[in-house]
């Protein structure tokens, strides 16, 4: 089954043609490029990221680690996760704060789940859910040694969540700014 994610990264969204952007927004960022999470022992967690998840890792600072997938080899933009080391994690994450990793097939998801259970102690994996079908994906969740949640999934059908298809539920109600606003950065 072809997996859309195998294709090279799509060209950057053209703001002028995206119905989901506000051309008059206060800010004009270049890219939403990833996020951050915590780990208690970077070297122990790094083994999980690199050896189990198959992500690339680098210690970019003494208390920090960067993660990325292999799509950078295709030459396009990519996401990265910045992992910061702390002695304790005051706010453990929950299922709805997970990172999602796409795999090639249902079989790859089943295999990944079996490997998670087999190597649970080696990588400090705390919880492994059974794979199941949800919103067109076949997936399971697991937690790593730092209580960060991961979803390993494959897409069984065209994703209803792809950008560019329109709001299913019209929710957007534009902000009412004070007269003459929002202020913008003057072009040089």
């Amino acid at each position, binding site marked *: 089954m072809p997996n859309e994610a*195998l294709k090279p990264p*799509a060209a*950057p*969204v053209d703001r002028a043609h995206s119905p*989901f*952007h*506000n051309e008059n*927004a*206060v*800010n*004009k*960022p*270049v*890219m*939403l490029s*990833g*996020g*951050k*999470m*915590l780990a208690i022992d970077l070297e122990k967690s*790094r083994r999980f990221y690199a050896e189990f998840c*198959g992500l*690339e890792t*680098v*210690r*970019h*600072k003494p208390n920090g680690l960067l993660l*990325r997938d292999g*799509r950078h080899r295709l030459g*396009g*933009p*990519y996401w*990265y*996760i910045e992992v*910061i080391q702390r002695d304790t994690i*005051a*706010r453990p994450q929950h299922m*709805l*704060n997970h*990172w*999602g*990793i796409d*795999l*090639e097939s249902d079989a*790859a998801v089943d*295999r990944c789940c079996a*490997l998670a259970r087999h190597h649970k102690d080696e990588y400090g994996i705390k919880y492994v859910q059974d794979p199941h079908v949800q*919103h067109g994906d076949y997936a399971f969740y697991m937690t790593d040694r730092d209580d960060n949640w991961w979803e*390993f*999934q494959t897409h069984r059908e065209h994703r209803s969540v792809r*950008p560019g*298809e329109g709001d*299913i*539920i019209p*929710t*957007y*109600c534009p*902000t009412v*700014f004070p007269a003459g606003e929002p202020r913008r*950065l003057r072009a040089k």
Partner: protein
Amino acid sequence: MTHASQPLNEPVSLSHGTLELFDHPETMRFYRDFLGIGCRRHHKAAMNIFHRGPAFVACVKAGKSLHAQGPENAWILHFATSEEIDHAHESAVRYRDLFESRQVLPIAQDSNGLRNFLLQDLDTNWWEFRYEPGEIGRWADAAFARGDVC
């Protein structure tokens, strides 16, 4: 850099992250009208946000069971210039009440040219407004090329 020669799994991609919302309408205004990112309501309980990258963040309505977040789990927005960080910060303070932002922290700058600040939004999620030198979408390339610092 470490990339296991034979990892147990071979991912196609790091495809998404997720966050929790109290509800959708006010947050959608913040995403589209303040942050300037794409936001699409695709489900009764969820919407996706995205902006030029290959991945997206799924934003799920959690209501009162939402788990408050800290700055250590911030989402990263890159900007093209250092001046845009100043503008974003000034605007974040100016429109703090309009978008119900909880906190706007001061701008910081490091010796490598990274300039940033953190904002906590109405749903307790944190956003890092970041400028750092580098090719668009490939800011981590230099770090990976340098290799481990320790």
